[in-house]
């Protein structure tokens, strides 16, 4: 199972629907300061179930919805979709039969947050189960946020152990 594309619409600074193709094994993302690179990482963590606004650099969860600029109005809805190629059938349980797996999350200004797997409305828990034990989760070792790489070895011994348990 590997990632084919990331689709963002109304998520943070991505006002327009944007598809980021990541077909290759080694993909570099570049751009000037403040252009939206880390927002892409936040989008992936959000879809995988991140539930703390503070961990997404916001105060409330609605801070992930496009808030407008000096020339554009704020939007009412944020949506992010990860599209996986699952031709190797490694997605767990009932999802292994599909050649493609779509993981999507949508949030509206009124606070209504919904998760979808292959367009089927599911709970947050179901999305987390798909990636359980793979080191992928909103805060697992497979995603290293900006400025945090050294934290894993500067943490207390009990915290390093938690990382290790994730890898088990």
């Amino acid at each position: 199972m590997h990632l084919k594309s990331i689709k963002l619409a109304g998520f943070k600074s991505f006002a327009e629907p944007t598809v980021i193709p990541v077909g290759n094994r080694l993909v570099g993302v570049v751009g000037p300061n403040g252009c939206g690179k880390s927002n892409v990482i936040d989008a992936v963590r959000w879809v995988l179930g991140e539930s703390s606004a503070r961990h997404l650099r916001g105060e409330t969860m609605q801070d992930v919805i496009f808030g407008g600029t000096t020339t554009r109005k704020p939007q009412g809805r944020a949506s992010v979709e990860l599209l996986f190629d699952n031709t190797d059938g490694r997605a767990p349980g009932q999802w292994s039969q599909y050649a493609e797996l779509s993981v999507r999350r949508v949030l509206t200004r009124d606070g209504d947050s919904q998760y979808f797997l292959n367009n089927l409305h599911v709970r947050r828990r179901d999305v987390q189960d798909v990636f359980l034990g793979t080191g992928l989760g909103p805060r697992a070792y497979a995603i290293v946020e900006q400025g945090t790489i050294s934290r894993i070895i500067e943490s207390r011994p009990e915290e390093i152990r938690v990382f290790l348990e994730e890898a088990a």
Partner: protein
Amino acid sequence: TRELLRVTFDRVNASFSELFPTLFGGGQARIELTGEEILDAGVLVVAQPPGKKTSSIHLLSGGEKALSALALVFAMFQLNPAPFCLLDEVDAPLDDANTERYARLVKRMSGTTQFLFISHNRIAMEMAQQLIGITMAESGVSRMVSVDIEEALRMTGDGAREES
């Protein structure tokens, strides 16, 4: 689960001890348990950059800490390769010689894991098979453009300097 943790600890330790000298071009490192009983012990990181005495992880420099942390994260990957790995400017504290070794290792590991990495260092950009540029041509609105290495350098600055 005591058995599982024991196996996990031993395998991550083996990988970490192999990847640390690969990233540092020498030296050695290991992880240790803080107590007898594995189920409630903490994990200590012991690192010795090439030619130095073993010291507490806290005395290491900014770049040495980042590189040691990368060795540990990648050791966990070797044990349990997640479908993909996201790295946000992890090479920022590294000098070019260390960035070179980091890029070589990521390239090697991309056989089993997909990497999406953010960087404004030319050496890291050169290892990518595909480069994605994010721009804010319209202030405050992010858009995606496909770029080659020359365009990428222009976006993060090397080129910007020539123009200004």
